[in-house]
């Protein structure tokens, strides 16, 4: 089942170039959405103004080597392993969703561009990764949706309390859940495969077409903000924050932070 390539069978009814055109249209929607988002929120302008302010408040000049080293460390820690998250649960769910989505998108593009005709035989590894990626996203995403998100854990709302901020996570979950269901139903010859394919297409259009209104673009901004934070820490400006305490012993043991579930 995991080695089944759903795009290959789909190639019998939908021409390969139509699938490729759809994928390119989705990429263009993301680019357009992010550009509009930047123009509307002016977050890039704020980012550079903030970086300029930090430079003025800096107590030491960073060499190019130091900057490269800080950026490399940020990529390895904050970005690749989502170390910014303060709790293990959120970090694990985010990593599952992040890597699942990347694997799913990359393998989708590879399958659509190279193995989307009935005669093409994809290496077994590719469809397997496609299914595993979608599964990882679903595990991380539904974990977040049902128990971790603030509305549920800190504000005490039920999981079905939906608001506009959920557009991204719900569209992402819908696209990858319906992708899995489409693959399962199509491989077993079920009559529902057409329905799930339609839902898969619609959820993708909502996900990629809704970039301007959703928090989709955070995946581009957050790495930049993390790099800027670590650079500011190294050059001494540190967003005006105090120096770390140097005589903690006199105050006794610290206190362990509790998870925010005390509403």
């Amino acid at each position, binding site marked *: 089942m995991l080695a089944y390539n759903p795009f290959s069978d789909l190639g019998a009814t939908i021409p390969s170039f139509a699938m490729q055109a759809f994928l390119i249209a989705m990429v263009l929607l993301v680019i357009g959405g992010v550009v509009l988002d930047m123009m509307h929120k002016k977050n890039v302008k704020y980012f550079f103004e903030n970086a300029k302010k930090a430079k003025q408040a800096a107590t030491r000049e960073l060499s190019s080597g130091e900057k490269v080293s800080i950026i490399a460390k940020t990529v390895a820690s904050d970005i690749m392993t989502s170390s910014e998250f303060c709790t293990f649960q959120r970090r694990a769910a985010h990593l599952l969703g992040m890597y699942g989505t990347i694997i799913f998108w990359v393998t989708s593009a590879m399958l659509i561009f190279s193995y989307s005709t009935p005669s093409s035989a994809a290496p077994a590894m590719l469809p397997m990764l496609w299914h595993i990626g979608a599964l990882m996203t679903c595990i991380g995403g539904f974990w977040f949706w049902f128990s971790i998100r603030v509305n549920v854990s800190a504000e005490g709302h039920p999981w079905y309390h939906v608001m506009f901020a959920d557009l991204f996570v719900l569209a992402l979950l819908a696209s990858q859940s319906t992708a899995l269901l489409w693959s399962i139903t199509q491989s077993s010859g079920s009559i529902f495969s057409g329905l799930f394919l339609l839902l898969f297409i619609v959820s993708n259009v909502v996900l990629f077409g809704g970039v301007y209104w959703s928090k989709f673009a955070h995946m581009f901004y957050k790495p930049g903000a993390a790099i800027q934070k670590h650079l500011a820490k190294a050059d001494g400006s540190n967003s005006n924050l105090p120096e770390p305490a140097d005589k903690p012993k006199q105050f006794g043991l610290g206190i362990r932070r509790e998870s*925010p579930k005390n*509403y």
Partner: protein
Amino acid sequence: MSTFVYMTRCDGCGMCVDICPSDIMHIDKTLRRAVNIEPNMCWECYSCVKACDQNAIDARGYADFSPLGHSVRALREEEKGTISWKIKFRNGTEKNFCSPITTKPWGEYIPELATEPAPSKDVYDGELLYNEPKYLKTGEVQTANDGLPEMTKIGKLKQGVYY
């Protein structure tokens, strides 16, 4: 004035939502980041500023004691048990302080609200706040010749809330 959130720093974890005594820190309905929904009701207790793991929350002080150009930043280091403060004045003067964390664990001094029974209609309609004692029993207060209570003569204080 009130607290505000640096959106690029906030990761929407909900620590501030949980800690805010006024229940005015919420998650933005569009961006899923923390936001102070009622700045007029914020009394700058700095609970959220200190609780934020990402140092994403800052406060605009009242103009009478913290004019434009100032900054008050806090760094909470749980493993060291400390909160450090950096106060920057408008004229460039800088003062640094370090104090212990005195937060008590939930449930020890503060009731676990999630496990408490829901209040009845009478409690809702009553004048008293949650857990507020009806009256203070402090024993008979002795008064001195001038009519003022003699504090040393007050009987043993009973458990309750004393203002």
